[in-house]
């Protein structure tokens, strides 16, 4: 099956019941690959559930769930290589973990502990790791887009064989950043994938209130770029489309916009009340008939790769791994008070030196 831009309906590889729609052989994925994919899905959902509890227990101040969007995030991160760069947004921890962020680091990020690669300097919606080429996002929706394009421009200038992927939501497409990033990417034919997780809501604002087009993918036409519409709850389809765009970028054939059509199960964040704006029944429909994990599990069963016993074993295994990860995170201390002034500049300025003395006196240290 061939991956084409601007399809009228989302590209699918699997029926909702998990039946393969077409010849999936040419994906070149082995049974082990499938099982790896599935473990990631279950793992991501488990991390999500755990963080949700941490917030409920008041141990973490903020959390944005990815539940429902696991296929979208994991399927798009798996085709990437070590040398590729990743820009996440406030809802992309699934992709970050596939790229190499440890669950223990994510938990530490949630808890604001030193094991957090960003040392508790960001509201917990995504730390960065230099060694993984993973840039930490600000909270300002859309800002990562032109940055990602700039990184891709640098990869081109430096003749690197790396590419860059940038995650953002449907709401972010209304910001100037999306427009400018798309335009720069197209003008410089940069090796970048602009990956839009269209979960149909920007907090309470529905896509039809956000923009007057039916899809996000078609917006690529305004930039002379290819736009791909994919079923974001079909991990094989997301994998195939992202792989296609990554190969294309690596081959110097330029940028792509991918719209991954999906749905979020949780409220916008732990601070939101989604009952105020969600039409009733909608969430139920997606949970029961569109769930990306159930769908892929059915595929595995359909392929005779999975059964109850394996499921139980996996769940137990993941549970154990996360228990250890959380323990590690909690074992790591809260950053030292005095470090609050660090890393503002490469070196302390005279003004910050003065403030360091003031703070020390204030803390009595």
């Amino acid at each position, binding site marked *: 099956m061939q991956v084409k831009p601007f399809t009228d309906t989302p590209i699918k590889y699997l029926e909702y019941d998990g039946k393969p729609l077409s010849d999936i052989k040419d994906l070149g994925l082995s049974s082990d690959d499938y099982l790896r994919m599935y473990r990631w899905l279950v793992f991501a959902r488990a991390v999500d559930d755990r963080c949700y509890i941490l917030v409920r227990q008041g141990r973490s101040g903020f959390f944005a769930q990815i539940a429902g969007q696991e296929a979208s995030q994991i399927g798009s991160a798996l085709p990437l290589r070590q040398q590729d760069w990743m820009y996440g947004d406030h809802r992309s921890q699934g992709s970050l973990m596939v790229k190499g962020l440890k669950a223990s680091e994510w938990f530490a990020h949630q808890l604001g502990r030193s094991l957090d690669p960003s040392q508790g*300097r*960001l509201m917990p919606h995504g730390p960065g790791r230099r060694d993984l080429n993973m840039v930490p996002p*600000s909270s300002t929706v*859309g800002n990562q887009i032109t940055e990602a394009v700039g990184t891709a421009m640098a990869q081109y200038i430096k003749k690197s064989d790396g590419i860059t992927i940038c995650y953002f939501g449907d*709401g972010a497409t209304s910001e100037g950043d999306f427009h400018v990033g798309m335009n720069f990417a197209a003008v410089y034919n940069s090796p970048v994938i602009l990956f839009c997780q269209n979960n149909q809501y920007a*907090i309470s*604002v529905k896509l039809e*209130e956000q923009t007057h087009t039916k899809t996000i993918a078609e917006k690529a036409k305004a930039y002379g770029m290819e736009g791909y519409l994919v079923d974001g709850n079909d991990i094989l389809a997301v994998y195939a489309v992202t792989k296609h765009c990554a190969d294309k970028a690596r081959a110097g054939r330029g940028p792509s916009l991918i719209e991954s059509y999906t749905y979020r199960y949780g409220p916008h964040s732990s601070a939101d009340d989604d009952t105020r704006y969600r039409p009733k029944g909608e969430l139920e429909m997606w949970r029961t008939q569109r769930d990306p994990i159930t769908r892929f599990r059915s595929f595995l069963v359909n392929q005779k790769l999975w059964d109850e016993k394996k499921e139980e074993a996996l769940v137990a295994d993941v549970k154990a791994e996360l228990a250890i990860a959380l323990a590690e995170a909690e074992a790591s201390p809260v950053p030292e*008070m005095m470090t609050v002034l660090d890393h503002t500049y490469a070196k302390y300025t005279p003004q910050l030196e003065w403030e360091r003395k003031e703070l020390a006196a204030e803390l009595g240290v």
Partner: protein
Amino acid sequence: MATTAAAEKQTTLSTMVQAVRSALIDEMTLDQNVVTLGEDIGPRGGVFLVTEGLIDKFGKDRVIDTPLSELGIIGAAIGMAVYGLRPVAEIQFIDFLFPGFDMLVSEAAKMRYRSAGQFACPMVVRSPYGGGVRGGGYHSQSPEAYFVATPGLKVVAPSNPYDAKGLLIASIRDDDPVVFMEPKKIYRFQKQEIPNGAYEVPIGKAAVAREGKHVSIITFGAMVTLALEAAEKMKADGVEVEVIDLRTLQPYDVDAIMNTVAKTGHVVLLQEAPRIGGFMGEIAAFIAEEAIEHLEGPIVRVAGWDTPFPYALEKAYMPNVTRITRAIKKTLNF
């Protein structure tokens, strides 16, 4: 003020969130030209529920849920204001105003001047600001310095529910663009009896939040509460602290500042924002130029540190009573 007002007319016990909502409802009822626009302000009622219920009352032509663009919110508000409406734009967190900063400083602030008074921008950009809510680097900032440094803009920041309602109504009625900064840390911190129905608290007038004769703390917004705490603390040591709540930062109340400096001769300037280039530098400069003869000690600034706003270490970052009392001693023991 709240109590005397309460005596006169019927009042409602309100948080600052309720006071702001009440200001919007009263003004939108009185003036058909007042509209409000922003992200999630419709059915969602805004992320802090300030606009809860407004869309049912006034309909979607006057309570406008916008796409996710601050540039669009402020730009559209300007276009509405020059046409003759009085838009109140909500920016979800003031940290997110910056994609629309150009529209505010290049357009709203300069429209009257560049048109030689032909066009005005009677609009309000209201937004929650400030720290102490575990919001991290992008849900905690106090960027008033940028707005005060922009001629053509007015900047207002209330410290209690009564002032919040009166100042917002005055801001909506003002014929110039007003940045209305709402201290989110105290959105629900305190309830006050506030009058039902519209009333104004004048723009450009400070309030004496506490009388004292030894040292003056000049501040605004959420920091007023902290200043009062510190004042209470100093009382033990026999130091009587006067607390000035500026309420309006641009144009600030020169008389109130002159009076308190003349009275105490010792000044502490308190803000949440980083110290360097912060708004309080302006107040220090004003005093050092116009009231230096009254000074009996250094003008001491208490502020956030000169770093981005942290997350886990917020406590080490934000001004606290200790930082303030150390400053008071610094200027007194001079």
